[in-house]
């Protein structure tokens, strides 16, 4: 209902494959192993939470999954494309087409109204203005904000803002939705609302990856991956 990927949900196609993926940072004369030989698969319609204490590497993993960063070594295949070997502009294109981001701090542009915020990815995809507006309005209706499309973020509540951000993440029909602590700045009731939206998105066939450190949030998902010291500590499907 919330997205159109549902028709292909029956096939459990693997859309992300990571093999011996490493990310090292040089800190002075020390090498920090933020991710150390990670092997991971995500299948279509997976609904996953990535958990771990701070410093466990979950942010680094999120950045690499979101093509915001590239691994030091290893392979990362997204929809059959080797992302690890791409340059900046190719990565930008992948982010635009394949990934929908939802951030803890929402990251809406305050001077743009909801509609303009939601249509941003479509500008970078080269979609014509009329179609952009139409699709953005449609996406806002889907997250329950059909009556707020001309409002600016400052005129909305935290939960509403996050729903705008979710609409923006959905607008370009991405392969995965990547949510980094999406309820981190929200109260319990609103968090529950937002998680229900993710649940519905998952039911509609979307592939969702959540980063969180809250157990109760993680339990909305069907798979929990725990990281510690750059390694996978556990990977459980429920």
């Amino acid at each position, binding site marked *: 209902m919330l997205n159109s990927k549902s028709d292909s949900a029956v096939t459990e196609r693997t859309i992300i494959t990571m093999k011996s993926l490493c990310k090292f940072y040089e800190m002075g004369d020390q090498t920090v192993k933020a991710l150390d030989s990670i092997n991971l698969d995500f299948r279509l319609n997976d609904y996953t939470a990535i958990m771990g204490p701070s410093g466990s590497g979950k942010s680094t993993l999120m*950045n690499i999954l*979101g093509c*915001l*960063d590239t691994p030091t070594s290893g392979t990362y295949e997204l929809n059959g494309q080797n992302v690890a070997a791409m340059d*900046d*502009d190719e990565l*930008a*294109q992948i*982010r*635009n*087409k394949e990934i929908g*981001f939802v*951030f803890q701090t929402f*990251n809406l*542009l305050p*001077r743009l109204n909801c509609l303009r915020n939601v249509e*941003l*990815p479509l*500008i*970078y*995809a*080269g*979609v*014509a*203005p009329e179609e952009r507006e139409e699709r953005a309005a449609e996406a806002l209706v889907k997250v329950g904000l059909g009556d707020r499309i001309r409002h600016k973020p400052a005129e909305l509540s935290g939960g509403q803002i996050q729903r705008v951000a979710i609409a*923006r993440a959905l607008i*370009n029909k991405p392969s995965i939705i990547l949510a980094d602590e999406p309820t981190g700045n929200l109260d319990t009731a609103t968090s529950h609302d937002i998680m229900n939206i993710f649940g519905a998105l998952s039911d509609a066939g979307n592939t969702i990856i959540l980063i969180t450190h809250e157990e109760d949030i993680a339990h909305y998902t069907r798979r929990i991956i725990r990281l510690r010291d750059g390694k996978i500590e556990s990977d459980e499907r429920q």
Partner: protein
Amino acid sequence: MNLFSQRFRYETTESLKMALFQIKANKVRSFLTALGVIIGIVAITMMGTAINGIDRGFDKSLAMLGYDVVYVQKSSWSTMGQWWRYRNRPDIKTEYAGQINRIISNNPRSELVLAVAQRSTYQASAQYRDRNLDQVFALGTSHEYLQTASGELTAGRFFTGGEFSGNNMICVIGDDIASGLFPDEPALGKEVKLKNRKFRVIGVFKKQGKFLGLFSFDNQIIVPLGAFERVYGKDMFTSIRVKFKDQTHIEEAKAELTGIMRQLRKIPPDEDDDFSVNEQRAFKSQLDPIKNGIALAGIFITGMSLFVGAIGIMNITFVSVKERTREIGLRKALGARRQTILLQFLIESVMICLIGGITGLAITLLFTFAIARLVPSFPIQVSFDLIVASLTVSVITGIVSGLAPAVTASKLDPADSLRYE
């Protein structure tokens, strides 16, 4: 339309909107930033306007002298101020005019048309009743003078050949003389006194304006040559005005005239000329260094202010990049490529410069109109080229000053930028 150009168009539209928004949202800051460019463009356009004006004023003045007239004189115009070089030359005789005319008429292929002699003084005084004008330019010449000079009559007529040979005591006066001596009455028929000799006014010239803002043809009294000599004697400054056929054949005309003069003076081939053939271009070549000096100083000042302006814009664009780090990160996360971000900040700095440039132009235009209103004789001229040039300079300043910050922005790491507080 292919995806690439379509995307480029939409991204550019978005960047333009964003730039306008940024400028509107930070009005004071944008104004202060643009100030350097405003000052620079005002300097550029003012300088250009002044040079244009000087040029135009000069051309207007030269047109008064006549483009198709050269002057045979004792000294050269192009080396004015070196009178000692010409001191020992023999005086120019008024008889040369008739002799030159005879030689011309015997040569059907001559480039020359007519020679007219004149004697003149800048130190004449003209009186009418109790009114007195000093520093009047008195000129004695023939009835053919008008064929070699510009100037129309608003009243009366020029003197005739009969009046010329009869040395009649009559005069044709410039507009300033007419209004100076006869402010409330028509000048025609009145008698003007030059050194206590009475000259009857038979014609008044139309106002011509000043030559180079110094000498004015409106300040002249033209009388028959014989009458002039009766008043001022034969020692006054003498020239032969020679009109030639074709402005483009000035060199040939000068060469022919030089040959005739050498023949008249019987100068042996191995000796230098003891006269000069002057043309209005000589003035122009004297003016060029002044004009270049103004231009050079102007370019320097303009360059400095634009440079300072550019640094200001660069600085503020760097601040803007810093302030909007998260926005840059977000845009990149949503699919903006490097060039998209680069373009966005470039457009912003170019827009500030362009607004500054247009403001500067407007200020200059206002100044120009004000000056033209208050001091109509001041030569001033705004040209289309100047407008194009200053807008081009604004855009280039915008690109130059915005490039470094824009490149910095485009290279920002998206993951770090998103986390930037």
